[in-house]
């Protein structure tokens, strides 16, 4: 029991991040790709690593208002990520639709379709906020392991 708990604590120090762009304006993606993992705001010190394959992912970062066009692809992609996983919505787009909220082409809010665990509002959110969101997601993820 004790061993398993300790191992889980160790395992929680290696959360790998995966980004899904569900039709964002790219503002949040730029924020994620450059600011959050580049020297100034290094998320690798939390053990995070951006991975190219959904199969390697632990924490999913969704940006964008879930366009009608990509909805099925996003949902399928989300299914491909092995459990246990945590979903983080980055930016106001996936939370409410943001500036696209009244468009016929978007399906936001995303949590109608996927269980979202952490919301990081902002348009785009500050890198510090993204890092805080990731840190919260790690807490949730540790409980799920």
């Amino acid at each position, binding site marked *: 029991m004790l061993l398993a708990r300790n191992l889980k604590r160790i395992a929680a120090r290696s959360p790998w991040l995966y980004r899904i762009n569900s039709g964002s304006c790219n503002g949040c993606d730029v924020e994620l790709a450059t600011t959050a993992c580049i020297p100034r705001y290094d998320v690798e010190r939390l*053990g995070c690593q951006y991975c190219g394959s959904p*199969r390697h992912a632990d924490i999913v970062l969704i940006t964008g208002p879930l366009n009608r066009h990509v909805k099925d692809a996003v949902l399928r992609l989300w299914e491909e990520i092995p459990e246990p996983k945590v979903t983080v919505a980055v930016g106001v787009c996936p939370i409410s639709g943001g500036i696209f909220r009244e468009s016929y082409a978007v399906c936001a809010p995303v949590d109608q379709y996927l269980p979202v665990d952490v919301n990081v509002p902002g348009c785009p959110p500050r890198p510090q906020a993204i890092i805080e969101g990731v840190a919260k997601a790690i807490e949730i993820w540790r409980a799920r392991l």
Partner: protein
Amino acid sequence: MPTELVVLVSVLVFPGGLFAFALGLALKGVDRRVAARLQGRVGPPLLQPAFDLVKLGFKRTMVPDTAVPGVFLAAPLIGVVAMALAVALVPIAGVYMPDPRLGNLLVLLYLLSVPGIALMIAGSASGSPFGAVGFSREMALMLAYEATIVLVVAAVGLRTGHAEGQVVTFSLAEIVRHQQEHGAYLLDPVMWPAVAAFLFFYPANLGIVPFDIPEAETEILEGPLLEYSGPALALFKVMSALKTVVVLSLGIALFCPVAPDGIAGFAVWLAMMLGLLVVGISAVRVSIGRMRIDQAFSFFLKWPLLLAAASLTVVVVV
């Protein structure tokens, strides 16, 4: 101790098996940390690769519908076993001499190409188009760099063989002993081109920028590894950690195996491993970008091959 037991220990405990596993993970950790520092970041803790392995142990291994399950799951195992054997084949000057029954340099060359083949099998068995692209790139790259290492090994073998009054020797133990008595090949101008060729070879063999083309995550989503998750992916990580140990220590055994006996020799060996890692891997991978496969292919068939051939020619003629 009976010799069977000695062989078994050398494969399972030191320097193969457990020791190589721990050292490989530590080297990976140092590499990530140094790379982060060179980029001005804090970087992950030194034990990060070990954390990653534990984490992967908790995840599910998913086998895609399109995959061939048996082959898909066996591929990483083949790679790990080959590498664990290969570590036991490389001598550490003053500390460890492999039992001749384990095999010689030629066996080691074969074992060294197994991880590449395991990746190719993995890529094609996963049924993913990205895996297939990774497969073809891995194969092209292997064709390009294998020629270099064969010529380098031939140059070292012939040089030692000539000096010892034979035609050629492929016993690593003999090569190491010769250099301990007559000075390292690193100080022998005839061998300098071969050393340079080896320095080009090992990032390619280890799949490190600029030669990480088969696993390019930004282009083909890690290619052969794309469909792997959980413990199966962890095995691939172990394989690449072990391979780092094998290739770096092979470089030391071929060109610079001069060290005092015992603990001091071991410390010198460790320091050389770290130096090779930091200079040849971490510093290189943060300062340049990835090559295209056709660039890497023609690059390898030009410069490293030419360098290795130059050494070989001089060795044969003189």
